[in-house]
């Protein structure tokens, strides 16, 4: 089976700044992959290129063997993208939003309606299905956006900071949902600043800094490579990225 995501020599420059620099990484099908990095490391830029929102200056992107750059429409059919700021319409209800998103992805209306009901019930939004999103809390908006990302049953789910601003209960619901999707065979790539989440949930972890992949593997592999068997992900992250040096000094 083809890898869920294969990046090869990916490069993106904004003006004089090289946001992504010859980045190559592989995410296997059916795993939850956490992409970590300090602010401005190039995580979001990388994921936006994978989702087809940004054109790279160079390199290759393949999603389940489909070339994102040559045939973006085919690749997009199996990808879902959920940024940190939910892409919602304030004056639509969750149900109307899901109908719209399903239409964009060409999901059969009957199937979409069934999935919408299932997702909204799962996420505890069924009672709010007739309310406009404008009055929703951050967590409710995030959950609605997540339902939208799942309505077409994507094989690859890309989430940028999915837990930002969520309370503990909603964050738990989202984490459970992601693990559930992985169990059913989907692949999840997420970025997060909450390293404990990556430590507990991710099958593999990639760390990027200044647009380059500086570490990649399971937590055990990362520890073994550094020769620090008891190190936490936070220790490894700070050491690898050099982020902790300023504080230590």
């Amino acid at each position, binding site marked *: 089976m083809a890898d869920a995501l294969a990046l090869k020599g990916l490069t993106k420059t904004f003006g004089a700044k090289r946001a992504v620099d010859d980045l190559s990484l592989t995410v296997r099908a059916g795993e939850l992959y956490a992409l970590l990095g300090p602010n401005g490391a190039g995580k979001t830029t990388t994921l936006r290129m994978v989702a087809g929102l940004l054109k790279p200056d160079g390199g290759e992107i393949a999603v389940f063997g489909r070339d994102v750059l040559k045939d973006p429409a085919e690749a997009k059919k199996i990808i879902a993208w959920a940024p940190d700021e939910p*892409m919602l319409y304030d004056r639509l209800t969750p149900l109307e939003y899901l109908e719209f998103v399903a239409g964009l992805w060409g999901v059969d209306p009957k199937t*979409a309606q069934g999935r919408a009901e299932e997702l909204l019930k799962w996420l505890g939004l069924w009672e709010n299905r007739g309310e406009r999103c404008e009055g929703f809390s951050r967590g409710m908006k995030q959950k609605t956006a997540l339902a939208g990302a799942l309505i077409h049953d994507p094989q690859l789910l890309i989430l940028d900071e999915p837990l930002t601003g969520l309370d503990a209960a909603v964050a738990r619901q989202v984490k459970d949902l992601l693990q559930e999707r992985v169990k059913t065979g989907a692949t999840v790539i997420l970025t997060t600043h909450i390293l404990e989440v990556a430590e507990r949930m991710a099958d593999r972890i990639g760390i990027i800094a200044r647009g380059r992949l500086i570490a990649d593997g399971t937590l055990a592999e990362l520890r073994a490579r550094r020769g620090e068997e008891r190190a936490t992900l936070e220790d490894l992250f700070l050491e690898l990225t050099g982020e902790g040096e300023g504080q230590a000094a």
Partner: protein
Amino acid sequence: MTLKLGSTLWLMRHEFRLTWRGFTRARTGGGGRFRRLWLLLILPAILVVTAGLPMGYGLRHVQIPIVPVAVVVAAAVSAGLFTLMLSQTMAAAVAALYERADLDLLFSSPLNPRRVLTVRFLAVALNVYALFGVITTALILPSVLLGHPSWIALEAVLFALALGATGAGLLIAAGLFRAIGPRRTRTVGQLLAAITGAAFFLTAQAYNILGRSQSASLWGRVVRAAEDPRFHAPPGLDWPLRAALGQPLPLAAVLAAGAGLFLVANQVLGARFAADAAAAAGAGTQGRPARIGRLAPFRGGVFQAMLRKELRLLGRDPALISQVLLRVLYLLPLGFLLLRSAGRGQTLLLPGTVAALGLMAGQVTASLAWITISAEDAPDLLSAAPAPIGAVRQGKVVAAVLPVAVLLTPILPPLALMAPWVAFAGALGCAAQMAMGALINIWWQRPGKRADFRRRRQASWFVSLAEFLLGVLIALATAILAFGSFWALVPAAVALAAVLLMRRSDAQIAAALRAA
């Protein structure tokens, strides 16, 4: 000048800075500077030279008599201005309730909330006055300098009207809030503001709406009544005229009336308004009650999904509805004139009117197309979807065109029965104007937020100018065609060539959007 921190004047300066920046805000680099220059220097200078000076010179020895006709006219103009100002202040009062951006910050500070609100309300009054004051000052100043110093009192009358209109606007907004609740106040308040604003225009268009005989007889009755020696103006009707001419007592009375209404509204509603603003924010978080029994089955397809989504969003945007409604109200006199002219066989009037109708239809379409295309709330969602760009655009364009087509339905089909050729030319003109409005908005997208709807033209002077010039060309072609001359092909061909020159490929559109 250093002002005491937290003082009323300090707060007032803060309000003015925000208003001024909002007023002169432009997306393009030098747009803001030009707009400031235009408002402060160029426009007043043009008005002074073209109207103020000739008027001042012509009237330098004229004393305006306090006769019934002058009294009635002055009172009517004052009432009209008050209505216009009321529409502005009502919209501002509703906005103050809902778009409270910095009110939370100000209320959480140690400043007295009553003072914060008083300053904000006063700023509303001053802003409304400034809208009219720029023009009237330029018109009246030469007269003031050339022998009528007391006429400067007109400015004081205007300010009194602005104060009164602000008080009335606040009372209406608060009354609506009590009567129909926070959710509906927003929609009803904005619609009411639009209708109030249009009322002045519609009254001025009485001739077109009622027809020559009825409107002439209406105005004639008023004038005859005023000229009748037995006519006694109701007490106080002559105050606006006397006040504007600088008579101290009426001027003091008018100022006191305006300030009184403002102060009453401020005192009575001040504290309540703050509570209403908090309740308005709270109402948002509760959302709308679920309509569980009304779940329609999903419908598929990119075009359908896009069309339904856009129509839902257009229909649920009270600010947008009030703007479109305003344009529809402006269309009414045109429609009446068109149908009445056709009914009476007044063939000379028809071509111009049908061309103007097309121009208006094109403008509304362009506005709606800007909303559906450039003011997309979730552009990344559309970019991330595997949906064909053509289907996405078709849905958006049809959503922009449909409401305009519905608005034209009561006008064009009846016209076709009365004047088929003119109706044909009109339909062709409307279709061309609507297509032009939609195409330019696709090719020259100007990303913005729905809330910036009224400022959308500032995003690109080139597109705004192109829309206007092409609209005029197509209107010219429509009028000539309605006359039955095929010379219409000349402006039509020029317009078509210009539209084709403005065409951009998908790659060019994408590149422009990336650069924006």
